C-alpha cells in the first residue's frame, strides 16, 4: 500500500459571527493559503472532498455554493460528506490509497452564527424517540458529564481544570476564538457550566494530502498517515455506557494508535467531560501533550473542528514538534461517532 501524507494545513481565524461574508467568501482565503503552501494550483489537484452541513446553513445543497471557491471547471473529481471534514479526509485518504489520485484537497466549514446550533443539532437525532423532545447538544453532553461524576471519574473542579488548560494553551493559537483562561460561569445545563462548553462560531479549514514521493516534493517533513479508522456507537443513548467510548478505542486500534506511544494528541472534545472519556478510551498518559491548540473548547466551527484536529496534529509534525501524533474527530451526540488518525514524521528530517 502506498504512503499518504498530509502536506499542508490552513484554517481561518474562528469568530463568533461572520455575517458580512458568505460561505465561499469565508472559505476562499483558506483554500488559496493551503494551496499556496504547496505551490499547487486548483487544476493540479487529483481529488477534492469537503464536509459541511445544510442544517447549519439552512439551505439545501449549500455545499455547491462553496464549490465555486475550488475552481470546479473543467469538471473535477469531487465528493462531499454531510458531516465533519475529518470524514472527508478519510474519503480522500482512501482515494489516494487506491491510486486513483496522487493529491487531494480536503476542506470543511461551518457557519453556526445564522442559526441556533443547539437547536440545529437536535435534528441529527433519532426522529422517533428523541428529536420530538428537542434535547439540545449541551443537554446530552450534560447527561454524559453527570454519568462520569456519578462513576467517580471526574468532578466539577477537574472539568474546570480541563477548560482552563485548553484556553490557556489557546493563547498561543492566533486562530482560536477563545484565547486565554476565563471564568467557568454559570450552569448551562448542570453539571456543565459555560466554561465546559465550546464557543459557538464560524470557521473553515483545509488540508492537502499527497502520496509517496509527491508528498516529499511538496513538504519538507510530511505528516505520514500511518493509520486511520472510524467507528460508531449504538444509536440509542440509553443503550450505551456514556462513561466509556468503545468506538474510539476500536478506531484507535484500527489506526494502530496503541502500537507505540504518541507524543501529541489533538482530541475533538467539544465539552470538557468528553476529554475525560477520550483520555481513558485512548489510554493517553500524562506525558502526552493534549490539545496544545486549545482544542474545540477554544474554537469549535461545527463540521470543521474535527478536520482542524487532524490539521493541528499534522502541523505539529510539519514543524518538528511531534514525531508521532494522534488526531481524533467526533460527530453526533455524546461522542457517538469517532475517527482516529495516527500521523508520523520521518525522524531523519528533524
Amino acid at each position, binding site marked *: 500500500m502506498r504512503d499518504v501524507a498530509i502536506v499542508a494545513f490552513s484554517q481561518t481565524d474562528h469568530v463568533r459571527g461572520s455575517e458580512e*461574508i*458568505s460561505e465561499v467568501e469565508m472559505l476562499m482565503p483558506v483554500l488559496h493559503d493551503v494551496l499556496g503552501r504547496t505551490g499547487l494550483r486548483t487544476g493540479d489537484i487529483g481529488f477534492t472532498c469537503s464536509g459541511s452541513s445544510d442544517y447549519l446553513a439552512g439551505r439545501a445543497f449549500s455545499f455547491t455554493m462553496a464549490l465555486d471557491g475550488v475552481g470546479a471547471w473543467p469538471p473535477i473529481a469531487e465528493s462531499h460528506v454531510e458531516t465533519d471534514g475529518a470524514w472527508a479526509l478519510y474519503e480522500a485518504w482512501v482515494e489516494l490509497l487506491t491510486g486513483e489520485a496522487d493529491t487531494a484537497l480536503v476542506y470543511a466549514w461551518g457557519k453556526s452564527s445564522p442559526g441556533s446550533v443547539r437547536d440545529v443539532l437536535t435534528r441529527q437525532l433519532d426522529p422517533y424517540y428523541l*428529536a*420530538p423532545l*428537542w434535547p439540545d447538544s449541551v443537554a446530552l453532553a450534560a*447527561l454524559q458529564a453527570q454519568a462520569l461524576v456519578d462513576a467517580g471519574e471526574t468532578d466539577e473542579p477537574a472539568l474546570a481544570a480541563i477548560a482552563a488548560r485548553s484556553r490557556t494553551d489557546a493563547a498561543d493559537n492566533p486562530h482560536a476564538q477563545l484565547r486565554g483562561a476565563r471564568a467557568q460561569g454559570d450552569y448551562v445545563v*448542570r453539571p456543565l457550566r459555560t466554561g465546559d462548553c465550546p464557543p459557538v462560531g464560524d470557521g473553515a479549514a483545509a488540508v492537502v494530502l499527497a502520496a509517496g514521493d509527491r508528498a516529499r516534493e511538496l513538504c519538507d517533513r510530511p505528516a505520514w498517515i500511518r493509520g486511520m479508522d472510524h467507528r460508531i456507537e449504538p444509536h440509542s443513548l*440509553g*443503550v450505551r455506557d456514556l462513561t466509556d467510548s468503545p468506538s474510539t478505542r476500536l478506531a484507535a486500534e484500527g489506526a494502530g494508535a496503541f502500537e507505540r506511544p504518541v507524543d501529541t494528541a489533538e482530541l475533538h472534545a467539544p465539552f470538557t467531560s468528553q476529554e475525560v472519556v477520550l483520555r481513558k478510551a485512548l489510554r493517553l498518559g500524562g506525558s502526552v501533550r493534549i490539545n496544545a491548540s486549545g482544542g474545540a473548547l477554544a474554537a469549535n466551527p461545527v463540521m470543521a473542528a474535527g478536520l482542524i484536529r487532524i490539521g493541528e496534529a499534522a502541523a505539529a509534525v510539519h514543524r518538528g514538534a511531534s514525531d508521532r501524533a494522534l488526531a481524533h474527530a467526533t460527530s453526533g451526540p455524546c461522542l457517538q461517532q469517532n475517527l482516529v488518525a495516527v500521523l508520523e514524521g520521518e525522524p531523519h528530517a528533524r
Partner: protein
Amino acid sequence: MTATPASRVPPAPEVLRAPLTVEFPFTRSLGPVQSAFLTGLRERTVLGVRTTGGRVLVPPVEYDPENAEELRELVEVGTAGTVTTWAWNPEPRRGQPLATPFAWVLVRLDGADTALLHALDAPGPDAVRTGMRVRVRWAAERAGAITDIACFERCEDRGQREPTPATSGTERRAAAEPRLHSGEFDDPVTGIVAPARLDYTYTPGRAQTRFINALAERRTTGERCPSCRKVYVPPRGACPTCGIATSEQVEVGPRGTVTTFCIVNIKAKNLDIDVPYVYAHIALDGAGLALHGRIGGIPYDQVRMGLRVEPVWTEDGRHPDHYRPTGEPDADYDTYKELL
C-alpha cells in the same frame, strides 16, 4: 491580468439580513416494533423488545445494536423506573417537554435493561439524583408519539426496594418481570409526523449584498474574474472556473438576448401569472452567463432565441418583474452561442 482601477472596487457594503425559517413536517412510517411501542404509549402501556441474549431494550428497536439480529419479541415493562443519569435544564428551549426548569433524565423502567431519555418534572436540582425512583406522567391527549409521555415525575413507591444503578438486570427483573405482549392494539399507529422548525438570520455575503443593493437602484451588476475576465451575474464572490475571488464590479444590461427558453403550461401556486408563459435564459449585455427571467409583452409562441429584451420593473419590485422585447433586430447566433 490587468490592474483593477481602485475607483471600481466598492467599499464593503453594510450587511443585509433577513429572517429565514425552515419548517417542515417530516412524515415517517413505522416498522412493527416502533408501531407497537408508540401505539402502546397511546394506550398507557410501555413495551420493550427482548434480545436473543435476554436483554430488554426500552425504547425498543427492530435490530439488536450488538449483533444486528432482527428483534420482534415484545414485552410490557413497568411505567415506573430508576434514573440512571440526569442533567438540570434551567432554561427550557422551544419544543422541549416542559416550559418550566426541569431535569433531562435517562430512566431505566422496571423490567428494562436500557434507559429511555425524557424530561423529569422536579422543583429544582436538589430534588434530583441518580438512582431516584420516577414514574411516567401521561399526556392528557395521546396520539402515538414519544410525547404521549408528558414527562416523568418523582414517585415514592416504597413497596419496592430502590435499586441502585449497579443492581444487575437479573435482580431488577425479579422485582418487575416483563410480561410477553402481542404488540397488537386496535387502530395501530403506523406513522408519525415530526414537525421541525429552525430559525435563521440569513446574510448574503459581500458579493450578493452588492448585487441586491444595486438592484434596489434598478441596476444589474456582475463581478468580473480577474483571471478569465468572465462577468458573473448574479455574482457569488468567486469564479467557479478559476476558484478565485471576483471583486471588480461591472454594470451589465439593461438589455439582453434570449439564449434559450421554455413554455410553462402549469400554473404555479401563489403566482398570479396566466399560462402559458415563457421562462427564458437571458444574457444581459456584458454578462458572461445568462440569468433566468420571464418574458412578457409578446405572445408566448413568438418568443425565439436571439430575441432582444429589456427589463420591466414594477412600482415596488426589488427585481425586474419580467423582460419585454426591445424591438431591435434579433441578435446574431454567434454573439451568444458561448452563453447557451
